[in-house]
């Protein structure tokens, strides 16, 4: 089962782990990304995620399908937040259940690495004295 969501309300880890429950799984790996309080020494006050929802869902679905084929995952759940987030709020959760636990870790790491390269979601970090679109410039 593939469960992909982009939400403007707080994310729930148990929603993702419940979505990948399987009586024959050997293990579930989960990645949780939260808002950091600083970037290169500057204090972050909040951040905003902007998403091109339709394409973001499509790209996340591709990642989930790759995981299913390449690592034989039973289930993949990927939830990404959008809108305004405060420090320590969850930005993304990825949960993967697989027949063998090693595959769960590999697949989960592949998913977050690829999400950060291909999924059209943009993060704007706000500081005391301004804001920047993350990773926009070299």
């Amino acid at each position, binding site marked *: 089962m593939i469960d992909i969501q982009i939400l403007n309300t707080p994310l729930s880890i148990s929603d993702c782990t419940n979505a990948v429950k399987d009586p024959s799984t050997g293990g579930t790996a989960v990645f949780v990304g939260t808002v950091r309080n600083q970037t290169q020494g500057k204090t972050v006050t909040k951040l905003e995620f902007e998403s091109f929802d339709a*394409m973001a869902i499509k790209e996340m679905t591709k990642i989930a399908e790759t995981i299913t084929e390449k690592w034989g995952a039973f289930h993949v759940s990927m939830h990404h937040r959008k809108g305004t987030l405060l420090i320590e709020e969850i930005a993304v959760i990825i949960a993967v259940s697989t027949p063998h636990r090693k595959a769960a870790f590999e697949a989960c790491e592949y998913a977050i690495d690829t999400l950060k390269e291909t999924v059209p979601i943009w993060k*704007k970090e706000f500081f005391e004295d301004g804001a920047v679109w*993350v990773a*926009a*410039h070299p």
Partner: protein
Amino acid sequence: MEVKLVSYGIVRDILKEKELTYAVQGQTIGDLKTDLMSTFPELKRLKSLRFAVNQEYVDDTQSINDTDEIILIPPVSGG
């Protein structure tokens, strides 16, 4: 030909508008990119600028149709 551009993130800030009708000289995404960089020089400073049509990334050789809605995609930073 005139195409419809939709932009996100820092590109929207640079173009000042989320949606824009834009006159492009050439026939390909690569041509559009060249034109845009010249109209909006700030785009040259970005780490990357990708394009999508029908919710799929397209490369520079892709032909443009005047019915296309072309999405401008600056470096993504989700996660």
